[in-house]
């Protein structure tokens, strides 16, 4: 063990220059009862005491607060059961002064004790800054986690509410369907001259009205049920669908309507087979809705062009299209009246109908485009619209393309 004496060899110079404070040490020698016998000159200033405070005979507990309460450990040192008492980074509060951190170490120095003091302020202040940043980050992290939890539970609640709402809608629409079908069937029956006597025009008119409006209502109910089916995040079926054939089929099925509307429909297919994965009924409905919308609004002598192709570059969309997938797109372009810029942000919203459409008296629920959007989203795709008043509108559907070789 090192031998310490009361000479000043441990203290290189005093008072010490500030920048060397890291190296400053001091010591206090005591007898077996911890009464001071002597001290290095640096000891008193380190403890923030006047030099006379460390006079011979003074109790060490009086001048060194951190030792109070540690009597048991000191006894253990005296008995040789404990090597030393080490208290690190003790900050003796000094009113209005910079913090000073001391390491205190009490050891046996027969026949008494020695208390070693070292100033560790510089290292401690640096450590303080690091810890401060660390703790502030932790607090920020905790706050974020908490906020995230709150958002998630809010989101869950919203999801449940929305689910309950659409459940109710589904039940209501489903329950409407059977009585409506009954009403329409009876109206059909009443108008069937092979069963009943022919009606007078006065009788016929209101029954025809019941029949027509009943059918409109049934259409709406069916549309609402379709919409509900599209609420699930994935299509019910996952078949490989040749989109080229699907589009041609849709065009054929709407041929009569096109003729009636006096609108020309042209189609340019893709150069390579364009295969997507999903529910063909749902995609047929989506493409069908776009085409029949066009037929409805383009007007006599108008033209609708459909085109299926692989886009040379992906458009900037938010969120962006996954660039690791191969995308194909279908455009449906009409030269109809176009959509006003103010209406554009709303056209996919349920029940939205532009003022012009509402005034035109054309029937429609305002759900057609909502169905298109939901159907395409369900298939991992995107639909966008571009329009110019008096020039026409283009709807573009983007769908991820299945690489057949990889299948």
């Amino acid at each position, binding site marked *: 063990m090192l031998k310490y004496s009361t000479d000043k060899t441990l203290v290189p110079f005093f008072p010490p220059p500030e920048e060397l404070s890291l190296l400053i040490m001091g010591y206090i020698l005591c007898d077996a009862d911890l009464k001071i016998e002597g001290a290095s000159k640096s000891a008193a200033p380190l403890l923030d005491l006047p030099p006379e405070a460390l006079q011979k005979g003074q109790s060490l507990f009086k001048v060194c*607060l*951190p030792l*109070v*309460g*540690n*009597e*048991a*450990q000191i006894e253990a040192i005296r008995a040789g059961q404990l090597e030393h*008492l*080490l*208290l*690190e*980074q*003790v*900050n*003796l*509060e000094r009113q209005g002064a910079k913090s000073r*951190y001391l390491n205190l170490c009490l050891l046996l120095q027969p026949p008494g004790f020695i208390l070693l003091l070292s100033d560790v302020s510089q290292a*401690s*202040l640096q*450590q*303080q800054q690091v*810890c*401060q940043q660390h*703790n*502030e980050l*932790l*607090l920020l992290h*905790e706050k974020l986690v908490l906020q995230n939890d709150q958002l998630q539970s809010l989101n869950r609640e919203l999801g449940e509410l929305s689910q309950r709402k659409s459940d109710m809608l589904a039940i209501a629409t489903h329950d409407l369907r059977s009585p409506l079908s009954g009403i329409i069937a009876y109206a059909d029956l009443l108008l069937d001259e092979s069963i009943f006597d022919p009606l007078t025009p006065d009788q016929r008119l209101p029954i025809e009205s019941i029949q027509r409006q009943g059918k409109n209502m049934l259409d709406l109910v069916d549309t609402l049920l379709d919409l509900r089916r599209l609420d699930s995040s994935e299509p019910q079926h996952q078949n490989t669908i040749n989109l080229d054939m699907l589009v041609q089929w849709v065009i054929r099925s709407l041929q009569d309507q096109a003729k009636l509307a006096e609108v020309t429909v042209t189609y340019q297919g893709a150069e390579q087979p364009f295969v997507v994965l999903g529910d063909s009924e749902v995609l047929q409905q989506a493409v069908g809705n776009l085409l029949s919308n066009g037929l409805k609004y383009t007007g006599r002598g108008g033209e609708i062009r459909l085109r299926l192709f692989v886009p040379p570059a992906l458009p900037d969309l938010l969120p962006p299209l996954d660039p690791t997938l191969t995308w194909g797109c279908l455009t449906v372009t009409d030269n109809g009246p176009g959509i006003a810029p103010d209406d554009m942000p709303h056209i996919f919203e349920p029940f939205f109908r532009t003022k012009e459409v509402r005034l035109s008296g054309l029937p429609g629920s305002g759900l057609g485009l909502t169905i298109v959007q939901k159907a395409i989203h369900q298939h991992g795709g995107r639909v966008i619209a571009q329009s110019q008043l008096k020039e026409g509108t283009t709807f573009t559907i983007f769908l991820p393309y299945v690489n057949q070789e990889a299948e």
Partner: protein
Amino acid sequence: MIQRKVCLVGDFAVGKTSLFSRFVYNRFSESYMTTIGVRLQRKVMLVEGQELTLILWDTEGGQDSTAVKRTYLGGAGGAIVVCDLTRESSIRHWPDYIQLLRQINPTILLTLAANKVDLLSPTHPHRTLAQQIAQEAKIPLIFTSANTGEQVENLFQTLAKELLRAEVFH
């Protein structure tokens, strides 16, 4: 003259230093200054007409009780275990601190400070959580705010009374 060492322990940033400063200097600062090591201060109290000197040890806090430097706790007659009522984890860590303190000194006297009560609504579930833990551990619990000063004096008085009572008992 009776002197007792009393430690403030608990997770970081729960308000140990703030309670210490409110009690010793009647000061409070909104800004957070991480404590390194330990801060010491002597405070003379008058408890039921009797003088008692507390040597307060404001220790550095970590993420939980495993970060506590055990050498700071030696010889403490009492300790105040602090939590931040807005941070559930800091309440849930109480039993670990209690266990640690009792392991070092089985006869240590403890008081729980549920701090930052000024930030909590009167019906917040964290209040009940703190009460449950205090009841199970059979330790007095005081809802404090270093910010408003609410119940801070009472917190130290409560522990001081216990310390004096134990003194008489000896």
